[in-house]
């Protein structure tokens, strides 16, 4: 099953999402670009409102009006999908890109049995008949760790606990063996005790299948454990993207530094948690130049006028003028 | 307040109101603007009826039977008088009758809305604040009342009042009876809304805090509850005004409302219905049209108001 292809499974270029309101147009995503390699887990972190979830919705084509994709492109295995007609895009959803939402309580239709929802999804995307689809649904439930799946399959969502429901949601996302999965805060609504199980489950299932994952979360701990690479988002832009180990150990972008400083460490190396002063700007009040400039301790004149583009620094990319070798002030420590 | 004492607000008070979200949503809905203007015109005409009406339709001395059944805008064959909207069998001017009729309709409507508002808000506050059995009783009655159609409740109240009031006084009491009957059939919605809001406020810390420093909790809570419920109550009241006007018209149409000596729009329609088959269409059409326009314009305004105060419903 693993593809030998080295081309990225997902490629996002200059993706821009805007919401038109009567007070003007708000930019929820501002020219973001990144790739996800085959079999890779990309973590996406940032504060709420940074554009993490909007990125997921934009990729799968589920931005609700008044929002719209205002520019850029999204390619799945090299094929452009952001401008597909609705019916073609529907066939991509579920079949080639799966999605897992935050709250398993509200993700499932309370009035239908698990079996009905699973079989429906399987039959929409495959040629299996009802009996085959049911067998496949049972196998999927078994895979996601539902005990006695042949019995539980005919239960209603309310008859499952939160963690079990999220397993059902994962099974639903995997129905048609998609190549790419977007997990939007998959553990936020769960008890702390089951969060690790769910993350481990997603990771192992995707590894077995060679499926790529975009894991959206605000939990740096989850990212550090699970992801291969991480993208740090701020005010609708990517601040830094690179291998997890590097970004966590030695973040480059001042915002990422602040974010990593806020992770409590068991070893007690950092005696105090670092706090970033101020808060993320509202979409209607993003400053000119670098969006982080009002909160940055190393801000200088250029940050107020010119927006920093992503520039390669070693294994990663960072959007900060401090690392622009052409810049007069040079590289800061 | 004089102009000079106004604090120097850079945008100015009116400008700020003009620029507010609510004013914007009002301006951007032409239907609402038209409906509001129409409603205001109809209300103004009703209030100013004695000034506008060309005839006094209830002065028997001014009525001339030979003016009877004049067609709209056409001079009467015998007397040569012109009635804009025609005249009825007694030579009564329909236009004037409509003006006075909408006056009665709106008076009953507004008074009954006020009546149910006072009862509903009062009971809702008591239910939410006192709780326990009182609350259970009030809300139970409200449930039953809400599931019973208003018109039925109003008819029953009307019937009971008829049985209790001596026949000689019935005619002059009718207006009051109608207000009570319609008012009693519409209070439950206010009570529900206000109770919900009161329950929310009751559990907030400041109520406890007020009690701790020895203040009576009641007045403190009122100060917080009332502004919170003002919006929903206003919406309910607006929509209920249209309902009350229709309800009154229905009762009068059924013959248990305003008497012929003091007709409302419903009473006028009841008269007009007799001429449905004989061709004097204007006696029926014009009062009906005014009734529908009145109810529709108030409803449109209420509908907009509900959406404007509840953006999430859009």
């Amino acid at each position, binding site marked *: 099953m693993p593809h030998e292809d080295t081309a990225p499974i997902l490629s996002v270029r200059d993706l821009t999402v805007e919401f038109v309101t009567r007070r003007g147009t708000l930019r929820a995503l501002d020219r973001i670009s990144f790739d996800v390699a085959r079999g890779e887990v990309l973590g996406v972190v940032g504060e709420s409102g940074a554009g993490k979830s909007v990125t997921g919705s934009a990729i799968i084509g589920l931005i609700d009006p008044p929002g719209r994709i205002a520019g850029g492109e999204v390619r799945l295995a090299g094929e452009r999908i952001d401008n597909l007609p609705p019916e073609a895009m529907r066939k991509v959803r579920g079949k080639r890109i799966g999605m897992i939402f935050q709250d398993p309580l509200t993700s499932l239709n309370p009035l239908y049995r698990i079996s009905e929802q699973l079989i429906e*999804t399987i039959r929409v995307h495959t040629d299996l008949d009802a009996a085959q689809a049911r067998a496949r649904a049972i196998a999927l439930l078994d895979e996601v760790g539902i005990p006695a799946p042949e019995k539980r399959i005919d239960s209603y969502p309310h008859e*499952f606990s939160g963690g079990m429901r999220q397993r059902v949601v994962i099974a639903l996302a995997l129905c048609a063996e998609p190549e790419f999965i977007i997990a939007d805060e998959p553990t936020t609504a769960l008890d702390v005790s089951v969060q690790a199980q769910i993350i481990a489950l997603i990771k192992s299932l995707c590894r077995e299948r060679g499926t790529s994952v975009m894991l959206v979360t605000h939990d740096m701990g989850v990212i550090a454990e699970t992801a291969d690479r991480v993208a740090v988002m701020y005010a609708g832009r990517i601040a830094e993207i690179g291998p997890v180990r590097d970004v966590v150990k030695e973040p480059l972008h001042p915002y990422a530094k602040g974010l990593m400083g806020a992770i409590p460490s068991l070893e007690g190396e950092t005696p105090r948690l670092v706090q970033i002063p101020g808060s993320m700007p509202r979409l209607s009040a993003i400053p000119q130049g670098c969006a982080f400039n009002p909160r940055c301790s190393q801000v200088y004149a250029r940050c107020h006028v010119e927006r920093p583009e992503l520039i390669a620094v070693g294994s990663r990319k960072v959007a900060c003028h401090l690392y622009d070798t052409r810049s007069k002030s040079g590289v800061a420590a | 307040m004089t102009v000079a004492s106004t604090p120097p607000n850079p945008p100015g008070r009116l400008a700020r109101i003009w620029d507010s979200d609510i004013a914007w949503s009002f301006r951007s809905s032409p239907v609402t603007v038209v409906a509001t203007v129409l409603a205001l015109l109809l209300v103004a005409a009703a209030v100013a009826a004695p000034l506008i009406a060309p005839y006094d339709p209830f002065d028997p001395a001014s009525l001339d039977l030979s003016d009877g059944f004049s067609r709209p805008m056409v001079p009467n064959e015998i007397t040569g008088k012109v009635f804009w909207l025609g005249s009825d069998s007694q030579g009564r001017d329909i236009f004037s009758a409509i003006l006075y009729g909408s006056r009665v309709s709106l008076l009953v409507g507004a008074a009954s809305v006020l009546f149910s508002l006072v009862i509903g808000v009062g009971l809702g506050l008591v239910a939410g604040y006192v709780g326990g059995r009182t609350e259970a009783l009030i809300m139970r009655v409200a449930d039953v009342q809400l599931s*019973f159609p208003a018109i039925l409740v109003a*008819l029953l109240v009307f019937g009971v009042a008829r049985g209790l009031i001596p026949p000689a006084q019935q005619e002059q009491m009718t207006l009051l009876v109608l207000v009570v009957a319609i008012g009693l059939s519409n209070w439950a919605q206010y009570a529900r809304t206000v109770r919900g809001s009161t329950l929310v406020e009751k559990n907030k810390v400041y109520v406890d805090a007020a009690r701790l420093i020895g203040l009576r909790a009641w007045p403190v809570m009122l100060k917080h509850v009332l502004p919170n419920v003002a919006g929903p109550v206003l919406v309910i009241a607006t929509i209920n005004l249209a309902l009350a006007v229709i309800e009154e018209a229905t009762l009068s149409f059924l013959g248990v409302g305003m008497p012929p000596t003091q007709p409302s729009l419903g009473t006028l*329609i009841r008269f007009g219905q007799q001429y449905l088959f004989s061709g004097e269409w204007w006696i029926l059409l014009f009062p009906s049209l005014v009734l*529908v326009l009145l109810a529709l314009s108030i409803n449109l305004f209420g509908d907009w108001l509900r959406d404007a105060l509840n953006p999430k419903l859009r």
Partner: protein
Amino acid sequence: MLAYILRSLMQGIVVMLAVAFIAFSMFRFVGDPVVNMLGQEATLQDRAELTERLGLNDPVPLQFARFVADAAQGDFGISYRQGRKVSSLILERLPATVELAVLSAIFAFVTGIALGVYAAIRRDGWIANLVMALSLIGVSLPTFLIGIGLIYIFAVELRWLPSFGRGDTVAVGWWTTGLLTTSGLKSLVMPVLTLGFLQLTLIMRLVRSEMLEVMRADFIRFARARGIPERRIEFRHALRNTLIPVITIAGVQLGGVIAFAIVTETVFQWPGLGALFVNAVQFVDVPVMSAYLLFVAFVFVLTSLLVDLVYVALDPRLRSGNPAMAK
């Protein structure tokens, strides 16, 4: 589940008793029943006799108990005005009202749901907007004016349909039906449209707003993310979830059909219970008013019981009495 049904049954009984108390108070305290029955000229002895016979000297709670017992057996006393047993007056007129109300309810429900779903799915289409605008006009149109308008168009101008009455009826046992003759069916058309119209607009608006609400739910988004076709999402996932609250509210509203029948029956001179009631109110015929009140309350309790049962059938969360949670 059984507990749930028992509870709604109990609630129904409590409501019936409360309404019975109101009806009883009306009968006992609005006017003097003895004077009403015998007239002003009766002798003191006659009065005393009737007072004793009606048990009006007994303690009030005992009188109320007797009233409830009689009513439960269908005995509502004698009409002041017509001098006949109220129960036979009601039985005579019941078929006319029931046929009218049931047909109107079906008409309102089916059309209301269909239009509401359409208006929600095509929320920005011009037909949907037109339907919504018309519905607001519908809410502002008093029932009696709709009736008059229909009479003018179909009876006065076009002469297609009769303007009043039930037409020819056929007796089936004690029941008389207008459903088996052409003139009976023709006579039903306008009253049914008139009576159903207001409920139709209310149900339609309710369905639309509930459906729009449901379409914003997370599980709809998740269904979209799974690539379920939009049609299927609308009619399978959204519709059923929409109907649960709609049935609760609409069920109660349909009870209102009975009450609005009062107006429709007056406009079309329909020989039903509503017309009987309006007459009773005009002449303060208290036994008829009490009986009608009890009848309407009974219909309400019955509909809400039915609604509860449908609710249980539709919502699995209520069906599983013991929430067997997964371990």
